[in-house]
Every structure is written in structure tokens, then in C-alpha cells.
């Protein structure tokens, strides 16, 4: 496998493997059989830190719209609603995570995948995702800082 790209989050190296594609909402996607397997990027996992709760609000095999809320995640530091990254179909969820969502931290690029997805939307290439991260880093820091200050 070729070397991953790296995005520096301060001193932390977020590794962006080049064997897959990306969504702007900090998810990777990789073909697995006929389906796109989707998971959190290292950037997302670094923001979340230790995940201890994951809940899906939709049933497997559901059509979803871009930005539709499909689940909730909570970690030691943060919470977030999870949104569909594009119009498409969420075919099934990674059942291993339902018992132990910490796999997201331990192995986000492989065993910690979230769900399998079908979509006809265009995805980002790794270098394009890096550009998204570059462009958004300042805003990300703002979101983090503003909320720390509240």
C-alpha cells in the first residue's frame, strides 16, 4: 500500500490513506464487494477522542438523503449527530460496533467501519480531501475554541 497522505492537526498527524475515497463530512469510503464501506477518518477520530456511545436512528437498508440525521455518537470529549454523507442507501451497519464502539478509536480504517452504503454521488480523492481539511482547519479550531469558551 502506498504511503498515506498526512494532515497536521497541530502536532497530531492525521493519516489519510490513498487506497480509498472521502466525503467532506470526514468519512472515508472504500468499495467492499458491491458496497461502499464507510468509516470515520483519522481527522474525525482525533476530534472525537474516546468513543463510548453510538446509536443509529434508521433501520438497515434505508434510503437516506444527503445530510439526513441517521445516528448519534458520543465520546469522552464530544457529541455529534451523524448525517448521511450523500443521497443513497445505508445497507447495513457494522454490528461489531454496537457492542464496542471503541473499535472506532482502535482501528478506524478497518474493523471500526460504520456502515455499508450505496450512492451515485461523486466522492473526493485523498488529495481533494486534504484540501477540504486545509480549507476548514481554521473553522474547526473556531468551533472547538468557541465551545470551550462557552
Amino acid at each position, binding site marked *: 500500500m502506498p504511503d498515506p497522505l498526512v494532515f497536521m492537526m497541530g502536532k497530531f498527524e492525521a493519516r489519510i490513506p490513498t487506497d480509498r475515497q472521502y466525503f467532506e463530512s470526514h468519512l472515508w469510503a472504500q468499495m467492499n464487494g458491491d458496497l461502499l464501506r464507510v468509516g470515520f477518518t483519522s481527522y474525525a477520530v482525533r476530534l472525537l477522542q474516546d468513543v463510548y456511545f453510538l446509536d443509529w436512528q434508521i433501520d438497515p437498508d434505508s434510503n437516506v438523503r444527503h445530510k439526513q440525521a441517521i445516528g*448519534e455518537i458520543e465520546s469522552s*470529549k*464530544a457529541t*455529534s449527530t451523524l448525517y448521511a454523507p450523500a443521497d443513497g442507501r445505508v445497507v447495513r451497519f457494522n454490528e461489531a460496533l454496537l457492542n464496542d464502539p471503541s473499535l472506532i478509536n482502535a482501528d478506524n480504517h478497518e474493523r471500526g467501519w460504520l456502515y455499508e452504503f450505496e450512492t451515485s454521488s461523486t466522492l473526493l480523492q485523498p488529495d481533494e480531501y486534504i484540501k477540504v481539511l486545509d480549507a476548514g482547519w481554521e473553522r474547526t479550531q473556531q468551533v472547538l475554541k468557541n465551545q470551550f469558551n462557552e
Partner: protein
Amino acid sequence: MKSLKGDLVVLGWLYPRAIRWVLDRNGVKGKAGESRLNKIEDENQDEDDEQQSGIEKDSESVSQGIGALDVPNRLIFAIDLRDDPDPQTYVKEIERISNVMTVPLVQLSGIGFQSSSPSQNGQSETNGATNLNGTPHLNGFAHTNGSAINHESPSAVAPASEPKVIAGDGIRRRWYPVIDYSRCTNCMECIDFCLFGVYGVDLLDRILVEQEDNCKKGCPACSRVCPANAIVFPEHKTPGIAGAEGGPAEDFKIDLSKLFGAPSALEMAVLERDVELVADGRDAVGATVGIPKRQAGASTKPRDALDDLMDGLDALDV
């Protein structure tokens, strides 16, 4: 609960606003009593001013809301049980409220009213009290399971006793909005936005939740488009939609939703509505129908002849 006519303390696993307006929607009406629990810190509140603590908040009466209709002169204290796991907290608060509310009766004791009559269930006392210029008096507590108990023996709510469950597992949970009329401005954005016929208006053209069961389970879209944040879905996960009072102080965790692709409130509402439309076999309408408009720049344009005509028609009152 409709049979309980006096002041009420209602405890539930919901935000106080949600409790109050669910009761209102179901015909259990009253003014908002102010509990010391579930409160966002208010520096203006004098801790020693016991008289004040039972009286409706000023902010509600001066707010822009249209207010609830036919509100009897009694107080409903809604208390959220999720704030503190210790039952004593609630027992103490109930005792405090009970003491505050019985103060006027102590003053009247010379003409035959006793504040302490443990053998009574309070009903007859209350009838007497309301005859006397409507003096507020606490006649009992309504548990969420509907049982009334005597205020003189708070130990009767002792945590040791098993709660009586009257709504068992077999009962379908309902999902529908309740309107907080202390905030609602009757702007009609909700009735324009919802395409499922949940909303209607009463004889006075006030907005109301008319067909609760038309509401789509899990969909809070109308709440997101409400400019006054007056639509409460008591069981929604988002505190602001479930009737929490304040801002984002609920949770000290960072909310990453914006970074993880969260849509704006309006984008979200449009999506949620489309999902339910499609589930009903109807066509998604996206942002083409019922998008909030009245609030934006409503007063920026000068009056014109059409405004005069419309006001003239309104004035005819036909």
C-alpha cells in the same frame, strides 16, 4: 388529572416546559408555578422571598407569546425528575411548595380554615379556599401516574414504595408537538410548513395542534422552523426541541455536528419533511413549499396601497 382542581405539582422525566404544555394541550390548565428545581440560575431571585417563589414569572406575562386560553387561577409546578437521582430533593421541594402555598390559609385560620388537616384529601379545603377570593392553595400532588396524595404527609411519596404503573408497555407511545403559548406569536409558519395536516386554527384563529396523530413519529421539522421556539416535542433528543429553557449550557461537551455535516435548521426541517412525505408515498417537495418568509424583512418595505386595502378589509371584521 382533570379531576384535580387545585394547585398541582407534577413530576416527570421531561423538561418542565414540556410537562406544562403537554398538560395544557390535554386540558389540564393552570398558571406556571415556579419551582426552585430545574432552574437556570437567576441572580434577580431573592432566596428569602418565599412569596415570590410561587408566582408566575414576569417574563412570561411580558413575553410576545399569545398566551394560553381559559387558564384557571391555579398553579401547576412542573418538575423534571432527571436532574437529581436523590428522591429527597423532590420531597423537600414539594414540602417547600406546600408550605409556601399554605401561607395564605394560615392567615385565614381565624375564620375556620385550618392549614393542617391531615385526615383530609384537600378537596373540600380547596373548594373553600377558592371561594375566598381565589386564594391559591395546594390540595395535592399529582404523580405522573396520576395518583393524588395529601400534602401533609409527604412521606407517602417515600421512594421505597414501588411506583404504580398505569401506562404499561402495551400502550403505544404517541408523538406529537405541543405549543408553548407563552412563546407562540401565532405567526402560522408551522401550519404552512407541515404538509401532514397536524396544525389547525380554533374559532379565534389561534394556531392549535389539531390532528396529533397525523404527526410523523420522530419528525420535529415544524419545531425547527418556528421562529419563537414555541413548538415542543417532549421526547426529542435535542434539548432545544424537547423544551429545555436555556441555551447550550446543557452539555459541556463539544458538539461536532457542524463539522460532521450538520445541515442548518431549515435544511434539516426540509429534509425531515421530505423523508416523511416519501414514506407516505407522496412526492418530496424540498424547499418549494411553506418556507418561512413572514419574519424576514417583514417591516422593511414602506406601506403601500395594498397594505391599506388589506388593513381596511381586516377592519371590516367580516
